[in-house]
């Protein structure tokens, strides 16, 4: 199975994936990348009202093959 590396940026710190993970197909890679995002936010609620979370997926050639971001925009209305 091909190996993919998931680098995660929570807006404060980037964690580079050195181990990699095996997935049978591209749709499983996408699922994993999407699943990672809410878990990151759940770990530590963002302290600011603007924040961009992202997951960058590299393949074995170190080429970025998938990129997903989640943007948090929050504001007090009154």
């Amino acid at each position: 199975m091909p190996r993919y590396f998931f680098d995660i940026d929570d807006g404060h710190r980037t964690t580079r994936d050195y181990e990699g993970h095996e997935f049978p197909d591209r749709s499983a890679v996408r699922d994993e990348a999407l699943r990672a995002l809410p878990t990151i936010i759940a770990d530590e609620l963002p302290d600011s009202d603007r924040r961009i979370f992202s997951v960058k997926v590299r393949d074995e050639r170190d080429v970025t093959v998938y990129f997903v971001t989640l943007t948090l925009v929050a504001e007090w209305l009154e």
Partner: protein
Amino acid sequence: MATENPLILKLEHGARLTDEDRRLLRSVAVETRLVDARQDLIREGEVPDAVHLVLDGFACRYKMLDDGGRSIVAFLLPGDFCDLHVAILGHMDHSIGTLAPCIVVEIPRVKIEELTTHPRIARALWWATLVDEAILREWLVSMGRRPAHKQLAHLLCELLFRLRAVGRASDGMFELPVTQEELGDALGVSTVHVNRVLQQLREDGLISLQGRLVTILDLPALTRFSTFNPNYLHLRNGPRDHAVKEVQEPRLV
């Protein structure tokens, strides 16, 4: 490495065993079997006629999910009975498999029943079952209420304390022969997330990882971070080094 049987080291925390009790316990743990990593010891639905005891290695209790995934609900370490309750419950409601190569002993049900006629041993076995339940309660709290990074930190603290109780950890160091995927199955989070959290704990100077060797670099900080309190492990002697004293409850036996 301890030379004493890990079962005895463990049960000493649950009852004041006599030399005769120890001799008896040693006598049931003689016919050992080496089992490779990632083998089932027993599957859901089976009706085993023997109770499995882990003497060395790393195993787990798990349930398979509809989507082919696996949920690990307990880690079984040296000195742990895999299925003591089966002597009473009959069929297995979950599976048990090895994660690393294990040395296991199969103790026939009748032998277990015989052991329970000795009051201190009966008490110790009951204690072991209650501690299993207490660990499950703590995992439930972790799963439901602790964010993944604290959940993983909490698990590492637990493993250190449990392995140390059976002489399998020293100086905050122990072997963790499981993959990130297996850790994810135990925490209920994705492999990718396990990787990230492990890296964060390393960057923050709380742990170091060399292959399968985990070193807890700053136990007080790790226990504070994960709100780990070893009271639920009910270890009699408790941890001795000063690093841990501050997290101990005074009422801890």
